[in-house]
């Protein structure tokens, strides 16, 4: 059913527009004046002021690999994150740990772990799917590089960003 919207009847003052135009110009002039004399709060001036100090707890920045307190790379190269990643930014080449290794019980570890930050959409699926709690979205947001190759984070870089994660479940320690 069609709905008839009743148009408001304009009186002559509204119909010549001039009062409305003048009041509109007064409003913009007020904004201009307040801004000019610094009475309006200015938005963050990015390169000088940064967000770092008051970054919210739930911020999702660049994904990174973490080590546990014992210094082990938590990733077991199960490749779940590689499968779940919507833009297919993650590439893992798994490898086997030698039996004399300190953490040999885990058997598998990522030989190479690349995240293409040009592709990454910061969705956090990898963090959610990881059974080992090895990959986390940290707070870095300014990922830059001069070439495409610069924008691919390899294992060392990811571990450097990730650092050591404490207070996560440490199931491999218990089974040792």
């Amino acid at each position, binding site marked *: 059913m069609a709905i008839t919207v009743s148009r408001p009847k304009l009186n002559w003052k509204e119909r010549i527009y001039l009062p409305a*135009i003048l009041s509109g*110009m007064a409003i*913009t002039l007020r*904004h*201009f004046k307040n*801004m000019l004399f610094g009475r*309006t709060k*200015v938005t963050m001036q990015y390169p000088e002021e940064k967000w770092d100090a008051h970054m919210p707890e739930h911020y999702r920045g660049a994904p990174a690999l973490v080590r546990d307190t014992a210094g082990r790379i938590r990733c077991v190269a199960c490749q779940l994150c590689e499968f779940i990643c919507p833009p297919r930014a993650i590439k893992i080449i798994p490898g086997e740990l030698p039996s004399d290794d300190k953490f040999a019980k885990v058997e598998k570890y990522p030989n190479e772990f690349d995240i293409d930050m040009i592709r990454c959409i910061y969705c956090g699926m990898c963090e959610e799917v990881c059974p080992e709690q090895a990959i986390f979205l940290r707070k870095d947001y300014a990922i830059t590089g001069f070439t495409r190759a610069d924008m691919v984070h390899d294992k060392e870089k990811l571990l450097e960003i990730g650092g050591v994660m404490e207070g996560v479940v440490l199931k491999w320690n218990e089974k040792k």
Partner: protein
Amino acid sequence: MDYYFIITTLMKIVGVVFLIILPMVSYTVYAERRVSALIQDRLGPNRVGPAGLLQPVADALKFILKEDFTPAHVNKFYYWLAPCLAMVPAIATIAVVPFGSTLFGVPMVIADINVGVLYVFAIASLGVYGIVIAGWASNSKYPFLGGVRSSSQMISYELSLGLAVIPIFILVGQLRLTEIVNYQIAHGWMIAPFIGDWLNPVKWLLAVPMLISFAVFTVAIFAETNRLPFDLPEAETELVGGYHTEYGSMKFALFFLGEYAAMITGAAIIVTLFLGGWHLPVPWWGAEGFQWLLINGDAPGWRGVLGGLFNIATFFAKVAVLLIVFIWVRWTLPRFRYDQLMRLGWVFFFEIALVNIFVAALIIAYLPL
């Protein structure tokens, strides 16, 4: 051949176009960005140089260094012709505008011709070709619509533009712009006759039709220069970029600068016709009591030179104030719909200007001035 005349004229042309108009164009763009930002509670470009003052240089460099790309589907010759046509009329108009009194005895107007205002209208009306040809040569939907809109809009508003200034000509009896300025120096500005015989109430009565003329003329200049609220030829939200959608790099820059140059010349015409041109009366309490002091370049020696420079500065200061008003209006008012634009031009401004002529003529004919 009078070599002195030729050399001074060349110096005036070079001085006005390259030392005043072109820098003014680029800094109007900067002012537009800063003022619009301040109005919208932002800061605007403030990175390049102190307070962002070198931003126009950076913009120019960017435009020059960009790849000069010509789309495959355009009509090549006219596609290249259009940006040139957009820039030329805007600059050529300034030739007849007196932008100062005299400097070293040389009158500060490039060509003082007796059809002054008509010349301005004639050249300004050629400005539409750049836009129409750009729209047509782009061979694409939105630019074409922009070009068609522009042509009908220009024709419609030229009427009220021409009619609005007729009261001035009835009053002054001349088309020469220097004469109009001289009249205003002797009798007070058109819309504010506070010098000369300012006690005469008829002068103030006459200021009313002049004020209406001023309003109509200013609005028509808005429409002629495609400024918001009448920027239908390039309405971004409807037509992508309007007539210059298919243009890039320096060719786009020429359109952009041409638009601002047209804005500056439009403001210069308004200043000359209604706001006293280069004239700025200075109140003075001398031996004979209060009087308005006229500063111009006639005084001997360095005082004359300073006076001439002061007049030029006054003129361009007035133009700058008007430009700020142009920008202010742009960031306040929403865009008109196309039928509203045509209605406004043909039904309101045309009639107002017409009636205004009769009112002014009656006042001038029947009341002692």
